């Protein structure tokens, strides 16, 4: 029979030691984790007060609105927010703006635009492509400060 008085006392001491050991080692682990974390962490106060890291940014869309470039096409005023695009557009003949506007914003088909100007569909398609190319080129020229003569 193992349940003698001595055995009970032995278990009591063992249990006491067991609990004490658990508590001690958990405390040691907690302390070690804390010190490890402290080595790797930088406090927020240090960053904000010593280093002046900005913790947030303010949006600038509303403070500095885009410059507006109203352009009138086909009796409608379109407001462009890109100065270069507006300048490039103005350097092209008016007919080309209209085609571009009708095709991309008026949702007309190439056939319908062709009819309006007395051209066939493929010519309109070509004109649209050509105008886009010219716009692209013109914007590049504007941003690089060079000027090249171009022909429609």
């Amino acid at each position, binding site marked *: 029979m*193992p349940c003698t008085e001595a*055995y009970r*006392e032995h*278990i009591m*001491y063992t249990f006491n030691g*067991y609990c*004490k050991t658990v*508590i001690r080692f958990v405390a040691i682990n907690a302390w070690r984790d804390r010190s490890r974390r402290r080595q790797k962490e930088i406090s927020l106060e240090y960053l904000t007060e010593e280093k002046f890291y900005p913790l947030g940014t303010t949006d600038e869309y509303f403070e500095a609105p885009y410059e507006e470039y109203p352009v009138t096409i086909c009796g409608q005023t379109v407001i462009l927010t890109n100065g270069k695009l507006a300048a490039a557009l103005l350097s092209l003949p008016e007919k080309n703006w209209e085609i571009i506007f009708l095709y991309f914003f008026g949702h007309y088909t190439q056939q319908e635009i062709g009819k309006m100007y007395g051209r066939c569909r493929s010519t309109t398609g070509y004109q649209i492509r050509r105008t886009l190319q010219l716009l692209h080129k013109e914007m590049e020229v504007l941003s690089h400060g060079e000027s090249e003569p171009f022909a429609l």
Partner: protein
Amino acid sequence: MGNPSLLPYETIVRVTSGDPEAVDGVLRHYSKRIRIAAIENGHIDRDTEDSIKQRLVATLFKFRFDEQEV
């Protein structure tokens, strides 16, 4: 029985069989020791205290009466 600072044998048996009241008794019995172990910079660290309690409860069920099986 000799040492009054030890938990009674019956409590230990109940703890290992998963009696919540007995587990609570163990925590209460060792609360002072846990708080002392959780002291950091002169004050008791709540997180450490909780983690010690948690860990102690988890390990209580692993206590085995080894001699009984021999």
